[in-house]
């Protein structure tokens, strides 16, 4: 049988963060008006954040995928009554974390010896780290392209792409990546409220 099904079924690697020009508030308003493209932009903007929160709270990938889906479904149900459209990352992280905890608690109850076998969360998942992550994510979104994608590739992508890979992705020379990341980080620091030098 001549098929290529023995190739590894995998998620797309080397993808970059999708950056919509519209703000969260604009996207949410468009979603309320039934704009499917705005919903797609919103999901692409935050799905990795939500999925990673669930993974860091000790869930295996299938359960983290469920939490990601149900978190966005909760957003869909709550969009009409949301009070602050400008703190969407925090809202999503809060919901995702709560759902992950519930799932873990339920799994622990279902296992006879009371341990759920999941990985422990890291100290960085504490409230302080959590708020910082939301701030960082918001700043990365505000940073826009190409800094958003570059900093994601350099510092947030578990695949850890090399400078050469990133240079190809951004159609730039390898030597330009280092200085570019310096400029992007200065801008990020400025957006996070620090004095960028």
């Amino acid at each position, binding site marked *: *049988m001549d*098929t290529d*099904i*023995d*190739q*590894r*079924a*995998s*998620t*797309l*690697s080397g*993808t970059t*963060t999708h950056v919509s020009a519209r703000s969260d508030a604009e996207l949410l308003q468009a*979603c309320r008006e*039934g704009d*499917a493209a705005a*919903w*797609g932009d919103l*999901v*692409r903007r935050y*799905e*990795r*954040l939500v*999925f*990673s929160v669930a*993974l*860091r709270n000790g869930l295996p*990938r*299938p359960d983290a*995928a469920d939490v*990601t*889906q149900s978190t*966005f*479904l909760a957003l*869909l149900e709550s969009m009409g009554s949301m009070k602050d459209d400008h703190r969407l990352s925090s809202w999503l992280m809060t919901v995702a974390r709560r759902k992950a905890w519930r799932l873990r608690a339920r799994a622990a109850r279902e296992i006879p010896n009371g341990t759920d076998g999941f990985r422990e969360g*890291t100290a*960085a998942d504490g409230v302080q*780290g959590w708020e*910082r*992550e939301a701030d*960082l994510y918001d700043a990365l979104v505000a940073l826009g392209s190409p800094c958003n994608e570059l900093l*994601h590739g350099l*510092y*947030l*992508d*578990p695949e850890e792409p090399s400078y050469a890979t990133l240079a190809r992705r951004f159609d730039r020379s390898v030597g330009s990546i*280092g*200085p570019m*990341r*310096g*400029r992007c*980080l*200065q801008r*990020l*620091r400025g957006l996070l409220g*620090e*004095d960028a*030098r």
Partner: protein
Amino acid sequence: MRDDEIACATLLDWLEGRLPDDASAAVAERVRNGGPDLRETVGWLREFLEFTRTHWLHDVPPIVGQSLREAFDQHRRGGEAPAPRRIRPTLLFDSRSERELVGVRGGPMHRAGDVIHLAYTCPDADLLLDVTVRPTGDLDLAGQVFGRGGPGPPVFEATVHAGGRTSRSVDGDDLGRFRFTHQPVPLERLTATNGDIVLDVALDVGRP
């Protein structure tokens, strides 16, 4: 250049260990003797690097985006999403039968590296499965769904029941492929769903 005016890129190269020893020592010396602004910048960069080391952003299985697109469409139309249709495809091809036809001996399950090809069909889709025997005797299962008769959602989530255990794969791609590794024998049942349909096949692989 003043001592507190080291380029951010150079500081990052230093913090990330990308500089040669002599250049690294020179930057370290300038940071030690630098003013508060420089030390603050270095502190911020260290904190950023430390934070990102534990806060990677993982790519999300494509099934999530697909399901959420459908959920939004459903929400827009109002009402509940219909339950997916459960279908039991018919077995079209089993490479073990071919082996018997050509007189190959060896019983229903084989040696490490042996591969069983299975093909199923129904009006909505074809399903192909390759089962590979691992050296340890457990099994790898690779599958692909080829949808027919319409542009249904291409990504499938699959669940396999094997050796009394249930495993779920959410890492199917937009070519309808999915994969399981290290499954115990026997493989008993597989389901694959894209939200519209559930393909449900009984497997009989690896029984003694």
